[in-house]
């Protein structure tokens, strides 16, 4: 205050005005690393182009083959529906696990315990073969009470439904834990402040807790989503024609295994890339007001 008696704040100095401008030191290591990476990539590209084993012409022929495209569509459809089931079940079970009601808590615990604890393969086959255990599916009073509604299990459980139930419920158990972890990361003071303003319980959850928890929920959910995209190939055991099963049916006939696996890989890579971009924008939305403030090594 005493040394600078100017009545107005001074202007920001021009680019050459001040000799004390602070600049970053040169990053020599980064240039060396760049050279190494470029050489590495060039070698990979060379191999991809010159090695005849990749059979790029066959890859090109099958990339947009109707059977492959149908497989892609099925994979997308299954992944989206499974994740939708997973998120809905996950939110419900996650909330139940955090409830103070002992019965809800017990049920949620049991659900997570069972569906995380048994192999998905077994769950899939179980749903698919439900007809063998319960030939008739009915809706009514249990223990031989009156029935309101009845269908044969073989008709109700198609391979698609079996895949949906098997993968969806399993995913729900994992999502429940992700959502619970996200909710636990929010300071109790936030809930209290929200309550003190007169928010009803549901408003506190939706307006204050969930948007903040999303910051911790979105990245692992993106991970699950991407994992699920590839994991849906397990549904081939219940004879569902998703991408992997589609290329299998082709190469088991033509023996062009390598190029067809590359076709599948390219499609997976493409779908994962789209998902990653979507995830990036969702993350950015929920980082509003936060900005990266975590410092890790390798950042400078």
């Amino acid at each position, binding site marked *: 205050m005493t040394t600078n008696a100017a009545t107005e704040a001074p202007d920001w100095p021009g680019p050459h005005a001040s000799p004390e401008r602070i600049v970053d030191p040169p990053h020599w290591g980064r240039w060396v690393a760049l050279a190494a990476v470029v050489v590495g990539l060039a070698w990979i590209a060379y191999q991809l182009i010159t090695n005849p084993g990749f059979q790029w012409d066959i890859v090109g022929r099958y990339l947009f083959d109707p059977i492959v495209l149908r497989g892609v569509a099925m994979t997308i459809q299954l992944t989206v529906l499974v994740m939708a089931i997973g998120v809905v079940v996950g939110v419900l079970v996650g909330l139940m696990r955090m409830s103070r009601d002992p019965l809800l808590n017990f049920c949620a615990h049991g659900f997570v315990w069972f569906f995380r604890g048994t192999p998905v393969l077994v769950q899939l086959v179980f749903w698919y073969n439900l007809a063998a255990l319960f030939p008739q599916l009915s809706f009514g009073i249990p223990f031989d009470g009156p029935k309101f509604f009845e269908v044969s299990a073989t008709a109700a459980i198609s391979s698609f439904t079996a895949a949906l139930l098997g993968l969806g419920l399993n995913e729900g158990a994992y999502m429940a834990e992700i959502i619970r972890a996200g909710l636990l990361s929010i300071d109790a*003071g*936030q809930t*209290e402040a929200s309550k003190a303003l*007169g928010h*009803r319980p549901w408003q506190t959850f939706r307006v204050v807790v969930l948007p*903040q928890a999303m910051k911790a929920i979105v990245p692992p959910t993106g991970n699950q989503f991407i994992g699920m995209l590839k994991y849906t190939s397990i549904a081939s055991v219940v004879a569902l024609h998703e991408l992997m099963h589609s290329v299998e049916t082709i190469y088991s006939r033509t023996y062009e295994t390598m190029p067809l696996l590359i076709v599948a890989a390219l499609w997976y890579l493409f779908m994962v890339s789209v998902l990653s971009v979507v995830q990036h924008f969702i993350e950015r939305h929920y980082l509003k*007001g936060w900005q990266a403030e975590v410092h890790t090594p390798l950042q400078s």
Partner: protein
Amino acid sequence: MTVHETPSGEIVPLVRISNVWKKRGANVVLKGVNLVAHQGTVVCLLGPSGAGKSTLLRCINAIELPDRGMIHLDGVAIGCRQEGDKFIRLSEREVSRQRADIGMVFQNFNLFPHMSVLENIIDAPMRVRGEGRAAATQRAHDLLGRVGLADKAKAYPRHLSGGQQQRIAIARALAMQPKLMLFDEPTSALDPHLTDEVLDVMKGLAGAGMTMIVVTHEVAFARQVGDVAAIMADGVIIEAGPARDVLTRPQDPRTRKFLAKSLQKQQE
């Protein structure tokens, strides 16, 4: 200043805390607390750490429910309703309606970090009271002016100093037009310079006739602004009366010891 009276001419206080008991786990935190706060007065609650001050404040706006005893706001029981000789806990939904009339300011501000300052202030008036955006925004700007932060409406809480955050938190509570304001050590997380800017806002509020219950370690503030001072220790109020009397001529030896200690701390 409106004063409520019973037909017999007795003045009804805005807040009446009668014989409140509260257990937390095994230890009894509140052991029969009695306290009243009259309309338009400032009650300062002082006492050593662990005395149960925060717990009492949280009972007043039903973030916690006492195990025994009653708290009335404007003659209405908080957190429960009477049926015959039984007191039945209200649902969270019903309690939330009562809380809307009570403003609360926390030691560590608890602003919502994912909302801008303006959103922090207008959310509850719109969502809870059903006000229009235009009206809520208008009042938010008025309040921001009142706490001296008219230019911060678009900022996010993380980019504000502690003192600024606490003043926003006060504005957020005031936006609900509460009948009563509760403060739980609003300046304990702030350094002395920032403390003053928050205390100044609170003085202005007291001057405007707001009923306030303030948990604080600022003895000077309590003496200057408080109408009533209540000293709490071990879950009971050991001394209560006009702030100037209690804080200058304490009767209870425990109060004397506590005040001497806080004075010593302030001189350090």
